């Protein structure tokens, strides 16, 4: 799974995070380090689609984001689809 938008959604599914926290978390659970341009590109697209939103905070420099209900729904769909691919692939590998 290397789609940055999915990685960001998966990271925010655990809880609100700012940019650097997301970067660290994604590197930890997916082994992928998103570059700053890639990460903020994904954040921009996700916010435009209404799948994530900014959380009110006093620290304007470290803006946390939260996954929205629509974002959760989209993530669930995508993960289910991925899950089917993973299951199919694994079963076919066993048969081979």
């Amino acid at each position, binding site marked *: 799974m290397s789609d940055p938008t999915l990685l960001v959604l998966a990271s925010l599914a655990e809880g609100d995070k700012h940019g650097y926290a997301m970067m660290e978390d994604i590197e930890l659970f997916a082994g992928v380090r998103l570059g*700053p341009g*890639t990460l*903020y590109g994904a954040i921009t697209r996700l916010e435009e689609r209404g799948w994530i939103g900014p959380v009110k905070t006093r620290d304007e420099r470290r803006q946390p984001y939260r996954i929205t209900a629509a974002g959760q729904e989209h993530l669930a769909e995508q993960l289910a689809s991925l899950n089917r691919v993973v299951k199919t692939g694994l079963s076919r590998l066993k048969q081979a």
Partner: protein
Amino acid sequence: MKRVLRFLIYLYPAWWRRRYGRELETLLEDSGSRWRDVWDLFRGAMEMRMQMSRWSFVRIVIVCGIAGLVLSCVGALSMSIPYRYRSTAILKIEPAFDTDALNRVVHAAFTPQALSEIIRQEHLYGEAPIDGSIDRLRRAILIKPAGSNLAQVSFAHENPVQAQRVSQDLIGRIISANVNPSVNPNGLRIEFDAPPGPPKRQFEGKRLSLVGLGLPTGMLFGVVLALILRRRRARTAS
């Protein structure tokens, strides 16, 4: 390195920088600088710039179209300039190349009468006035040293055959003028070393510079148009 990364943030569109610029700067401070981030940020900035509104897309199309039009017009114009051919002969000067002495000989050989005769004989510049044609002919003649006792005499014209013929004529006139003792009191000997060779096409600096001019002209036009459209948009929005 940090400066480079900060500079790259300025490549993002203004609306994006207003919204995310500060956050991204903080992220860069927190995560440390890596060279691979330079490309990542550059690519991100370009992607953001590609997310255009309908207006800006139209604007870019218009700007590019006009720039292309200007370029092609300039290109077409430059192609209409005829090529010029230069025929060169070498003169041997004994005992040695002497600029002053050669200038005296050339001055005596290339009188306005002599040059107008060449112009008429060869129909060099069509129906153009003779005074202007003489100046043009003088500008097309090039005399320069080619060694300690050699001088290069050349003439350039759009017709290669005429270029060679006129070059031959000019050389003959120099040699004839040199025979006159009042012109050549020091007894300078001038003779052919090599007759006018086959004319060579000249480097078309003018042609290239015209094509080169097309790009900045088109871009300038584009910038002006973009500014006008931006102002109009701002007025409409307010």
